């Protein structure tokens, strides 16, 4: 797992209002020079790297959200590989994964843990 920070002690960075993230769709945020894709599914928020490892373009936030079995996933809009929203792992090529970020929704805001 890529979230190694102790979440309780982490420095949380406020990134945007929860309303900016539409349910079922992603948005991108720039946090300390890092591009992060945020997704909202029901009441959960997920944060993964915005860079698509297959094309090198920063487009993951523009993918379609869905499920495969029990896995919540996003499909890269470029070549359509799917990534597990929780773990970042690519479902077609398990050697490839997106970095994930600790994220929480508080008081109508979305916060990401700085690493």
């Amino acid at each position, binding site marked *: 797992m890529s979230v190694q920070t102790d979440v309780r002690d982490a420095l949380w960075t406020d*990134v*945007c209002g929860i309303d*900016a*993230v*539409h*349910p*079922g*769709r992603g*948005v*991108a*945020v*720039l*946090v300390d*020079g890092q*591009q992060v894709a945020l997704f909202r*599914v029901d009441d959960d928020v997920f944060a993964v790297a915005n*860079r698509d490892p297959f*094309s*090198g*373009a*920063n*487009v993951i936030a*523009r*993918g*379609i*959200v*869905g*499920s*495969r*079995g029990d896995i*919540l*996933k996003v*499909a890269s*809009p*470029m*070549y*359509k590989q*799917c990534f597990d929203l929780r773990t970042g792992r690519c479902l*077609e090529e398990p050697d490839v994964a997106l970095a994930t970020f600790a994220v929480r929704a508080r008081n109508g805001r979305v916060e990401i843990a700085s690493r």
Partner: protein
Amino acid sequence: MVGHKLVETFVQLGGTATWDVLVVGEEPRPAYDRVALSSYFSGATAEDLSLVAPGFFDVEGLALRTSERIVAIDRIAQTVSTSGGDVLAYDALVLATGSYPFVPPVPGSDLPGCFVYRTIEDLDAIEEWAGRCERGAVVGGGLLGLEAANALHQLGLETHVVEFAPRLMPAQIDEGGAAVLRRRVEELGVTVHTGMATEEIVGRSAGMTFRFAGDDHPDLDVDMVVFSAGIRPRDELARASGVEVGERGGVVVDDACRTSDPNIYAIGECALAHGRVYGLVAPGYEMARVTAAQVLGGDAAFAGADMSTKLKLMGVDVASFGDNFGQTPGSQSVTHSDPVANVYKRLVLDERGTTVLGGVLVGDASMYLTLTQMARGDMPTPDHPNELILPGRDGDSVGIGALSAAATVCSCNNVTTAAICASIDDGHCDLGAVKAATRAGTGCGGCTPLVTELLKHELRQRGVVVNNNLCEHFSYSRQELFDIVRVQRISSFSEVLGAYGMGRGCEICKPAVASMLASLGGGHILDGEQATLQDTNDHFLANLQRNGTYSVVPRVPGGEITPAQLIVLGEVARDFGLYTKITGGQRIDMFGARVDQLPLIWQRLVDAGFESGHAYGKALRTVKSCVGSTWCRYGVQDSTSLAIQLELRYRGLRAPHKIKSAVSGCTRECAEAQSKDFGVIATERGWNLYVAGNGGMRPQHAVLFAEDLGTDDLIRYIDRFLMFYVRTADRLERTATWFNKLEGGVEYLRRVVIDDALGIGPELDAAMAQHVESYACEWKATVDDPVRLERFRTFVNCDEPDPDLVFVPERGQRRPARPDEKRRLLVRSV
């Protein structure tokens, strides 16, 4: 042609290590593809036709002399003398002198304006002369004669074909086939005169008059004649030097392609092997291979060759194979003829009717490969052979199943049908597994639909039940789901997922349902939940590019654009630094826009009157046009106006896949309408409608659906055709693929669209009327709406552009940096 094949084979066999090869040819250029000669008139250059790779002769042991003729052979001294005055010694001499066109000894056949059709120079001369005249005749209605006639016709001449025999192509096809061929040829505007013996040709001050034998035949006035009445082997060198030639010409050779002089070989059209001259290139190539081996001491033999042929003459498939005329004692024939579709097929079977011996196919030769294999005994004849020539009821069996084992399915990774079948045999039963095992579909991804179709077909062949489910979230096919959404008047994805699906949906079912909702008139595609269903292209109303930027394609109906509009496009592209290119769809694409720039760009375009071009949508793309009767000297209808009218009518129509169209102003077809989902070609009396064509991966010509239509009927038929397709096609299925699977083919489609056999005509009409009425430009509706504009942000927490975007200049514009360039540039700027 055959001579060059010999040299190529000789080089491949390593012959040049021990031999010096000299090629002497009378024509001014190295060997070229005579079979494709006619393409010279449709734009191929002499270089395109060349068979000789550049530098081929620049090696030790090979030499070429062009524009030089061999004038004599001295067999005792083993030398030849050339028109340039040289005398050259040989150890082995190969005659590959081909043939010359036979010109019947009719008085007047040497008048100026008389031509033959064999070399590039002949074609140059014909073209030059044709530029000054209006009417031409071709003497000879065989294979080459029809090719020549097509050429004259394409050069814009009123064209006549004069054939001595009572039917066209008497050597290859029977009466039934010839009748169909004749109808097709005449439909194209070429007049056919059969059973006509030319008595004399009389010169006039300009042009000439044909006088025919028999009183009741009126004279024919033309300005030029092309003789194409058969070929005669060029055996004059052999004849003069005492090498044996046949009674009716041709240098006699044995199985080793050796002539009566053991040091002299003859191959190709000048040779008489097994008592016949083969006027086709394939047997000639076989002789070349045999001779190359023989000269090097091998013992290859020429066993004779099959005269089966399949060609496309003036757009008509014509094939004959095996015992095409049923000459085998006791043989019997079955024929199928469809005078409406202009198709004729004859199958010759053995006495018991159980084995295919040969046949003739005109108008539809899709079964040619299979049938020739049966006639050669390479494939068993099935139980009811007569069904082989009935119109395909199972489109699948002549579609994907007809792919040969060696056919390349994935061109990125060079994966063949055979490799995919092998991986299925190894137990790979879904697309992912087949892709992983063969690498097919892992490059550009363009072949994925084909791989999927092949996989389904193969699984079905192996008795596996293949379901047509859209994806894991819906146990319905697209068509079933479409009917559910339509009949239940469903208006959102959540609703259909809740009631008919499971899970949360995915990148397959979400855009598919979005497209259905849009086809059924579901409001702006970016409103509410609909926005979350769209693929990124539809989501940002632009096309995603490899670096994450987007392209902008405004609609240019029919490709007609004013100078003022061009200036606007130029200014917008300049101001936003967009790379600009003319597309293959007769409009202008501007590349490299960031998400946040899209609304600014579109605001300017909308203000100038431009609309969305839907290049991003599974929707109508373009209706290409030609200038038509307005400007073109050949145009018979105003194709540009019709194209614009059609593009405006169907713009924005959401469909299972993209839809393309074109309108040409005459039969020259400059707009390429026959490669479109629906295409229109002007006739003297109205419009011909073609449907279900495709360019792209698996090109397919559109089929003629209805002829000489008035504009109202034309539009009604297209309305119904499109709506029927939208309702019944599978996801990501172009009209061509859909049509190929349609039981009953074009007749069925005609019954649905023209005769309204299903009784859904008025409903389809109403659906299209509703589309036309409710159309609104998505981009205008977007730039006018602050809520919709909110999504066009690169980052929601700041206004920075994507810092990773790097461009480099190229030919006066900018393009995305390649990874290596990007690394260099980013390092330097840090």
